[in-house]
């Protein structure tokens, strides 16, 4: 038996390997990683690791000898170049690996910006990126961030803490447009502004001025000029789907399309994590999610499929978090068109939630500094029964006590 080959050793790939062993899978498990370092947690790369509060070894996904002890072979610094489903072979830069099952967990790379090839332009996706950026975050330096999404805003917060001057340029009319409702965008905008971040929303970059291979300033179309010592481009991700797509797998939403069992259109080839597109029953539509939760849950699910322990469809409620300044943002579920929002708690107290409902069903919850609401929402969102909005509007009533019970009544 050739066992299972997993391409990519991020959250999804490592979880798949570990879960295979936990499920009692006896065949070989190989993890192929392009990076030449042990697997690590990615969220701290824009936060505690970047701030110097955590060292790289503190954010390891597992202990140094964990994989070896669990008979998981890590091939690090190895690039997979092609997949041949007919012969069940993964072609590496320097050799071939036979497989019975292959899992593509290659994640996504940072999107680059045309015309931004300068020595002081940074991207942030992996540890190498983070270490390079960390090295450049000198107190007093002027950082210009292109992109007002999570990466941009988390780095803005970290950089302010480190004493940099920070400008954020966002082309859309508000921050986090893809992920947050307007009220949350506005709140986050105000908090960043209060912390001294200069935010330029609805702003287009007219041109950059460079000297000796480095950007020295960025000109906006509203004729503002932002001086820059360094520039971070945080404009989203590009899923790494080459292996599967070139072998003939179907694609959608920029990812490899998988069925409810996480299988691509290629025989015995699965895709999980940031690079997978799938129908999510909890959301009622096809999605591609970039989150730790989705990576971990799909890693567990694919292991169950391969080990023969699971035959159900993948259907986890998505959740996500971001830490910026003193804001712990936690989100559950996915926004739907035509939904309504209500505020729970007091926005000015910096502890509140936005509840998103559609036809009296709770579809998403956005929490700021309210762990109880977030944790409760992970049980409530996606429930088919009605949600008691009247009860939930009173922040003194625990959200968990407003479980959408089949009768449609609040249970508490």
């Amino acid at each position, binding site marked *: 038996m050739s066992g299972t080959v997993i391409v990519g050793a991020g959250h999804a790939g490592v979880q798949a390997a570990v879960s295979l062993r936990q499920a009692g899978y006896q065949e070989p498990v190989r993890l192929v990683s392009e990076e030449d370092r042990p697997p690590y947690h990615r969220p*701290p790369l824009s936060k505690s690791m970047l701030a110097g509060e955590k060292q790289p070894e503190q*954010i390891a996904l597992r*202990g140094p000898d964990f994989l070896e002890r669990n008979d998981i072979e890590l091939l690090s610094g190895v690039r997979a170049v092609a997949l041949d489903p007919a012969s069940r072979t993964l072609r590496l830069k320097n050799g071939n690996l036979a497989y019975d099952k292959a899992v593509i967990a290659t994640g996504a790379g940072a999107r680059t910006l045309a015309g931004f090839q300068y020595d002081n332009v940074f991207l942030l996706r992996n540890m190498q990126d983070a270490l390079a950026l960390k090295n450049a975050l000198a107190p007093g330096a002027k950082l210009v961030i292109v992109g007002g999404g999570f990466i941009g805003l988390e780095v803005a917060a970290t950089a302010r803490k480190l004493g940099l001057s920070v400008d954020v340029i966002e082309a859309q009319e508000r921050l986090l447009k893809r992920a947050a409702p307007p009220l949350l965008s506005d709140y986050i905008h105000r908090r960043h502004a209060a912390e001294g971040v200069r935010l330029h929303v609805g702003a287009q970059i007219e041109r950059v001025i460079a000297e000796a291979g480095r950007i020295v300033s960025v000109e906006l179309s509203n004729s503002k000029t932002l001086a820059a010592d360094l520039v971070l481009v945080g404009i989203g991700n590009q899923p790494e789907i080459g292996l599967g797509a070139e072998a003939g797998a179907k694609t959608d939403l920029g990812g490899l399309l998988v069925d409810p069992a996480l299988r691509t259109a290629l025989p015995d080839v699965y895709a999980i994590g940031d690079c997978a597109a799938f129908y999510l029953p909890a959301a009622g539509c096809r999605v591609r999610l970039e989150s730790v*939760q989705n990576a971990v849950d799909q890693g567990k699910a694919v292991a169950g499929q391969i080990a023969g322990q699971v035959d159900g469809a993948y259907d986890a409620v998505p959740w996500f978090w971001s*830490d910026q300044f003193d804001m712990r943002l936690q989100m559950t579920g996915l926004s739907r068109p035509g939904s309504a929002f209500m505020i729970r708690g007091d926005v000015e107290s910096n502890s509140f939630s936005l509840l998103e409902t559609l036809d009296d069903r709770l579809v998403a919850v956005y929490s700021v500094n309210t762990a109880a609401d977030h*944790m409760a929402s992970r049980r409530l969102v996606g429930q088919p029964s009605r949600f008691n909005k009247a009860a939930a509007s009173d922040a003194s009533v625990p959200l*968990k006590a407003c479980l959408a019970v089949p009768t449609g009544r609040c249970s508490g």
Partner: protein
Amino acid sequence: MANDINITFRTADGEVFHVSGRAGATVMETAVQNNVPGIEAECGGACACATCHVYAPEIIGATAEVYEQEMLDFTADERRPNSRLSCQIELEPSLEGAVFDLPRVQV
């Protein structure tokens, strides 16, 4: 190492793991680095997932902040008065010899 702090994890089945970590590392990180089973720590220490639940020794005291307290209401196993999220406890010399009990499940 000379400055390492020794702590013990005890699983629900009574299995014992004697490990050490340096001051400033969290109890969660120390467990992960030493392959202690039963600490999932899916969020990596962001206090976002409640999968690094431990039953803490008395010496820790009631030091959990409000946010952690709220998370502790949603642990997979029973919450007890000494329940803590181990990503929120940093090792310090006073914890030398401390014993942390692990719940049966984290997810």
